[in-house]
């Protein structure tokens, strides 16, 4: 059990990355942008994506931290599965530059009292952001440790007041093929869709992230807002969300549509249930280098103590 609840173990992200590297660059670039030659704007857009240095006002949540070493900002921002920008791990970093996460609005529909179109700031109180250091386990058997910045999804849901018919929450990624080159190809059935049960969505571990390492999310990580469900395989944590829908029946999910025998609705991290084409018993921790050995994968990605009770009586082999 590596989920530590002692504040002495909390590593602040500012201890890890020197901030000076990113300082002042944005204002300089903005000035260049106002010169408004096509070239300058283009350079500004590209640089803005690579180093979006907007600092967020964050308080670390001591309850959700870890003694494990955190992955570097570089690892987290250059090695991504975000097929909207392409299938290679480096594609989101290389081809995410055209995407414009601001301004952003989210359409809320379905079984809730407070539906409609919300600005990002209306949904997420920028002054209530917390830092949580979570493990992320990809279905491809690699993992990272990431200092997210966000708020519990439960806080947003309470604001939206779902009614008693709302047994599930469905999410959708924005569909912008002009800005997302991967969406111009039939890699998946676009737009990307995901979903949770209302209990999972309301669980205190479930986070809506708007930043990492104390800074706003970059495009490749799902700017401006994404889901983080640390006890489930990474593909559940849908990125760049612009639609939330409360519904009674179980939502469809993109990977389940693409390969129903390989990717289930629950998709809980489970070392005992292998993916049909590879083992899930062990994982490679990114950043462990050439000769780092694989480590055993933990049930519910090490969050069993917190979430196992959500699944009592459910056959997790059948409901993979």
């Amino acid at each position: 059990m590596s989920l530590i609840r002692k504040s002495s173990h909390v590593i602040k992200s500012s201890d890890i990355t020197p901030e000076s590297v990113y300082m002042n660059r944005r204002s300089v670039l903005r000035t260049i942008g106002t010169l408004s030659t096509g070239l300058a704007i283009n350079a500004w857009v590209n640089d803005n994506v690579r180093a979006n240095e907007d600092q967020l006002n964050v308080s670390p949540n001591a309850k959700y931290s870890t003694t494990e070493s955190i992955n570097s900002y570089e690892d987290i921002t250059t090695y991504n599965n975000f097929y909207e920008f392409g299938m290679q791990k480096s594609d989101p970093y290389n081809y995410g530059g055209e995407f414009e996460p601001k301004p952003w609005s989210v359409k809320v529909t379905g079984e809730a009292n407070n539906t409609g179109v919300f600005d990002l700031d209306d949904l997420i109180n920028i002054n209530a952001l917390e830092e949580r250091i979570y493990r992320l386990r990809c279905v491809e058997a690699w993992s990272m440790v990431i200092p997210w910045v966000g708020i519990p999804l439960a806080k947003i849901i309470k604001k939206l007041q779902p009614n008693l018919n709302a047994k599930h929450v469905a999410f959708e990624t924005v569909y912008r093929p002009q800005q997302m080159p991967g969406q111009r190809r039939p890699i998946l059935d676009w737009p990307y869709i995901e979903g949770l049960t209302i209990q999972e969505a309301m669980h205190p571990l479930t986070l809506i992230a708007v930043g990492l390492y104390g800074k706003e999310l970059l495009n490749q990580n799902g700017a401006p807002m994404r889901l983080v469900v640390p006890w489930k395989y990474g593909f559940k944590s849908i990125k760049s969300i612009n639609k939330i829908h409360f519904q009674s029946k179980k939502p469809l999910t993109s990977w389940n549509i693409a390969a129903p025998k390989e990717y289930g609705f629950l998709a809980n991290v489970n070392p005992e249930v292998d993916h049909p084409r590879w083992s899930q018993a062990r994982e490679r921790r990114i950043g462990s280098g050439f000769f780092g050995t694989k480590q055993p994968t933990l049930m519910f990605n090490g969050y069993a103590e917190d979430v196992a009770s959500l699944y009592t009586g459910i056959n997790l082999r059948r409901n993979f």
Partner: protein
Amino acid sequence: MKIIVRIILLASFLPYILLNFKAFGFFGGLGANPVEAIIHDTGIWGIRFLVLTLTLTPLYHYSKHEVVRTLPKPIGLVAFFYVLNHFLCYAIIDQAGDLGVIVVDIIETPYLIVGWAGFLCLFAVGVASFNSFQEWFNNNRSTISGLVYSAAVLGVWHFYWQEKVVSYEAIVHSILMTVLVLWRLRISTDKPSS
């Protein structure tokens, strides 16, 4: 003539040289998951050179170009070099050389069984091509050719099967291999003596 063959052979090692430079941090390095990068890179170049080896046969059949005639064996060996690297990186780096773990991993993972079978086919051809086996190699052309075709089909299958979503490259290799196998079958039924 010889100089052209040599240039082609040297060029075929460029991806390997580039990979080594990347391993030492040049040209952007290998990224956050260097083990995966090396395994994927050597694997994909193994497939490319295998498919190229088999493409040379019909190419010679229609062009009768002397350079093309001499290329299949060296290019096949280049493919073997990449595939051997691919397998050794998987076994020694990814699985830390733990034989028990490797055996279980291969048995439990369908695309690894296919890849392993393809590797064994290619390994047999690679060993047979050494000087001491030269006579046997030359006298058993059809066996050798059958093994190379098997290795290529299994290799492409292995590549195709491990992908989460099918890539353009997997589709291209699959189509090429289908055409090459069909062409080969047609040729061998046309001229049973060859």
